[in-house]
């Protein structure tokens, strides 16, 4: 490698990671092997390279041995690349003279054969030594952070995050898909384990959002386009026409009262279809904003054009506007918090529970509405014929812990089932049976709540219900729903006739989770919930800087945890905003003007719209701030005019050569 101007002096460090690496890989042997590789001046192994002494070791060696390139062979760069780059800086080197080799996730954790593992570790270290010799000095660019924040989803997580950010003096755009904020929590009557009224604690928060001078609330709206990068996102929000001018409407219900439909005729979404609404409606009395909506799919005016428009006549503020069109708002924000929530499992997917077939099989959410005083039955738990049930069976884990539907535990069902058992018992005095597989009540005051229920004359049967049927074998089963279950504690199958069955449905990713994922360029875990950057240490960050997640969009969770996570996400966003600027990774693509033929093939291929065309020069131009360093344009340029920092041809070819050429 005599063509280098400076003398290359490489230091190689092999980490034991306790037994994580050293248990499988011969770390001392690898260090000894690396010492014989070209340009390697020093090669060491150490118990924990990421520890302070480990980092200091690198700094000392840089000074003592005049090292100018460093290879650290340890875990994934995702975890510690920043640590070691900082160590280089402390030692007086440019941080991009570092190359990491992942001999933990890629070697020790996936191989059991020691010989193979050692061979692979040697190959990888050799490749890195060859590569690092060619790495160049790079500098990070700083860009300012826009202090405004976008929050998507107005459930309890979104509301909490919005209020925290707004109270900290930041301007918040809160976008909600439905006509009102409140999310699933607005459906509930009581909350576990304290049994405090959901509306009493939620609605003050909702009106605070509406009143807060720093919050712009756009309900009935969806994010339609996102571009830009951390600190500088450009977002388009489409506001769906509600045919009611929000600034004029005061929610007086005059339009609803005067609609030509005298009674509600269409399934009321808020009551899960258990009651009917008119084409013009307000979701519920505390809806926020308290503004009517006209549903153009059911309104006679939109269907036939021949309506006398009695709603418009009834409105003394002239708030109804049948000509409203979708409106696109363009905003610029520095950070984003996604709190889009979950979807409840569709119980029809498990036909053996008879949901949709037997009228008295309900989902837990339907019962939540029933026990709610503002719900379809005004707080009475009743069967379809209006009578009170004498016996009720609650089935846990419907659409949870099941390979055929969802493998995961939905985390909240045990507790809300206990809550419903208590409320049903309180409202009806019925015999209540809880059918559970394992009772999961970890949380402050949760086990105590379970204990309370155990003493309330509620029956607990450990077993997964196999079937809800209507075939009777004895006279006392006639006309009942019969639940067949093994009482696993007793070891005997039981048939339990009940009047009402409640299916405690699990939590799933929303149907549009994938669309949102693509829009904001984040990842989902295999089951479809948004993926956090690290499950323990970065639970509200994503792999896209400046985009944070909170609440049940990230995984099943209850209200206290959603609120806590929302606070964490707000804190992360605030930290980013208050640092004032972000540093951009320098691994961006660049164009050598003299080679660019102006063929434009790179323009459409860039997923981040980072490439523009200079019509005067007839050359492509890359916006460094937008480039994410994916390398797609580099590979596609027919004239080889595009190259990429940190992934230069000679760096990659040398790494490949190093991998295949056993040079010792």
């Amino acid at each position, binding site marked *: 490698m005599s063509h280098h101007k400076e003398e290359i002096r490489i230091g190689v460090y092999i980490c034991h990671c306790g037994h994580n690496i050293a248990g499988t890989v011969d770390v001392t042997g690898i260090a000894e092997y690396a010492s014989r590789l070209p340009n390697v001046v020093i090669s060491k192994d150490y118990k924990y390279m990421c520890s302070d002494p480990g980092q200091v070791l690198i700094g000392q060696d840089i000074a003592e041995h005049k090292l100018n390139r460093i290879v650290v062979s340890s875990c994934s760069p995702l975890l510690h690349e920043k640590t070691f780059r900082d160590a280089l800086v402390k030692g007086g080197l440019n941080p991009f003279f570092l190359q990491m080799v992942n001999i933990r996730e890629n070697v020790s954790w996936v191989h059991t054969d020691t010989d193979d593992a050692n061979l692979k570790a040697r190959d990888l270290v050799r490749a890195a030594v060859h590569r690092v010799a060619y790495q160049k000095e790079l500098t990070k660019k700083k860009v300012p952070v826009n202090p405004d924040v976008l929050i998507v989803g107005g459930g309890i997580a979104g509301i909490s995050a919005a209020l925290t950010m707004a109270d900290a003096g930041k301007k918040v755009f809160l976008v909600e898909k439905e006509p009102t904020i409140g999310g699933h929590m607005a459906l509930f009557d009581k909350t576990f384990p304290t049994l405090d009224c959901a509306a009493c604690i939620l609605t003050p928060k909702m009106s605070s959002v509406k009143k807060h001078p720093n919050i712009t609330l756009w309900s009935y709206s969806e994010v339609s386009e996102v571009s830009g990068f951390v600190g500088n996102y450009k977002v388009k929000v489409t506001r769906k026409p509600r045919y009611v001018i929000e600034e004029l409407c005061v929610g007086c219900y005059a339009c609803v009262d005067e609609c030509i439909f005298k009674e509600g005729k269409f399934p009321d979404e808020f009551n899960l279809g258990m009651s009917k609404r008119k084409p013009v409606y307000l979701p519920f009395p505390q809806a926020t904003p308290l503004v009517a909506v006209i549903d153009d799919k059911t309104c006679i005016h939109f269907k036939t054009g021949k309506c006398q428009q009695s709603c418009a006549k009834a409105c003394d503020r002239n708030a109804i506007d049948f000509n409203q069109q979708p409106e696109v708002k363009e905003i610029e924000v520095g950070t984003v918090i996604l709190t889009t929530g979950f979807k409840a499992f569709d119980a029809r997917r498990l036909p*053996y529970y008879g949901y949709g077939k037997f009228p008295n099989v309900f989902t837990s959410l339907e019962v939540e509405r029933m026990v709610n005083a503002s719900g379809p039955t005004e707080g009475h738990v009743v069967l379809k014929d209006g009578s009170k049930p004498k016996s009720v069976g609650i089935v846990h884990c419907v659409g949870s812990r099941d390979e055929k539907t969802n493998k995961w535990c939905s985390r909240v069902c045990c507790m809300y089932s206990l809550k419903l058992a208590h409320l049903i018992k309180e409202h009806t005095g019925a015999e209540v049976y809880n059918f559970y597989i394992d009772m999961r009540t970890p949380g402050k005051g949760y086990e105590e709540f379970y204990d309370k229920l155990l003493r309330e004359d509620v029956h607990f049967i450990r077993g997964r219900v196999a079937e809800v049927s209507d*075939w009777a074998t004895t006279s006392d089963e006639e006309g009942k729903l019969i639940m067949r279950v093994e009482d696993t504690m007793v070891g005997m199958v039981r048939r339990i006739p009940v009047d009402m069955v409640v299916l405690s449905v699990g939590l799933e990713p929303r149907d549009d989770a994938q669309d949102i994922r693509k829009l904001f360029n984040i990842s989902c875990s295999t089951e479809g919930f948004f993926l956090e950057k690290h499950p323990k240490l970065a639970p509200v960050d994503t792999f896209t800087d400046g985009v944070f997640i909170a609440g049940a969009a990230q995984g099943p969770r209850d209200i206290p945890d959603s609120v806590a996570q929302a606070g964490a996400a707000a804190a992360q966003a605030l930290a980013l905003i208050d640092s004032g600027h972000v540093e951009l990774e320098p691994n961006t693509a660049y164009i050598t003007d003299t080679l660019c033929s102006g063929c434009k093939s790179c323009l459409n291929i860039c997923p981040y719209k980072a490439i523009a065309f200079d019509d005067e020069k007839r050359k492509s131009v890359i916006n460094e701030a937008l480039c994410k360093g994916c390398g797609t344009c580099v590979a596609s340029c027919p004239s080889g005019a595009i190259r990429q920092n940190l992934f230069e041809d000679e760096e990659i070819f040398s790494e490949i050569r190093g991998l295949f050429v056993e040079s010792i």
Partner: protein
Amino acid sequence: MKYLYYPGCSLRSTGRAYEESLLAVFRVLGIDLAEIDDWNCCGATNYMSINEHRAIAITTRNLALAEQQGGSGEVHIIAPCNACYMGLQKTKIYLDTEQGLREKILKTMEGAGLRYEGRVVIRHPLDVLINDFGLDKLKMAVKKPLHDLRVISYYGCQMVRPIATFDHEADPVSMDQVAMTLGATAVDWGMKLRCCGGSMTSTVPDVGQRLNYLLLKEAKAKKGDIMITACPLCQFNLECFQGKISKKFRDDISIPVMFFTQLMGMALGIPEKELGIHRLFVKPRPVTV
């Protein structure tokens, strides 16, 4: 489309009427069937209990014979008996997915001068009627619509379990659809998939006959006029022990139990004799009158 036909042992004895009616109905509808030459027993549940690999080997012989007879490309085999249908299906899937097993069985086939390439598709007559022939065409062929007849469809176990290909594993509807196409009322009931006890009706009568009884009792409770099935053993259990069961449980549970193809034949105007109606113990009065 030409189909190969695997009758299975029961359709040659206790379930004769199933074969007779199936062949008659398919002839009238113009669906061609050619019997697999020199077929052998599918092994059923019993064989599996003694020796799994031998059970799979004898079933594979049938599949290999079918491929030989059916020419190149996909070979569709119609297996009307639920147990045979499942046995053939399960064998095909295990051979497709378990490499070691496949090698072993292919070797056995080679020794017997046979080759199995995996080109077979196992079909149930209900699948063929609905998805190949079509219910619209069937409706047009109906000569005597079965109005006012309440039909209880009993699917038994092995049509959709453990492998559901053409109908839902927990809530099948194909037989009900056929009954409705014939003009009858399909009665929804909760026991369409509940086991009749299989061979237990003969081996452990106390247990088997109680399972039969529960099914018959519910069929009566749902005011069914007639039960239809697609399994010779289910039909045998549910029909032939009705006298004993009525006496034992002191409950009149008599109800005609016939093969769905017999019911089809009657609606298509095929003479009773050709449908094996005379072989039934409980005469299907509501249909024949």
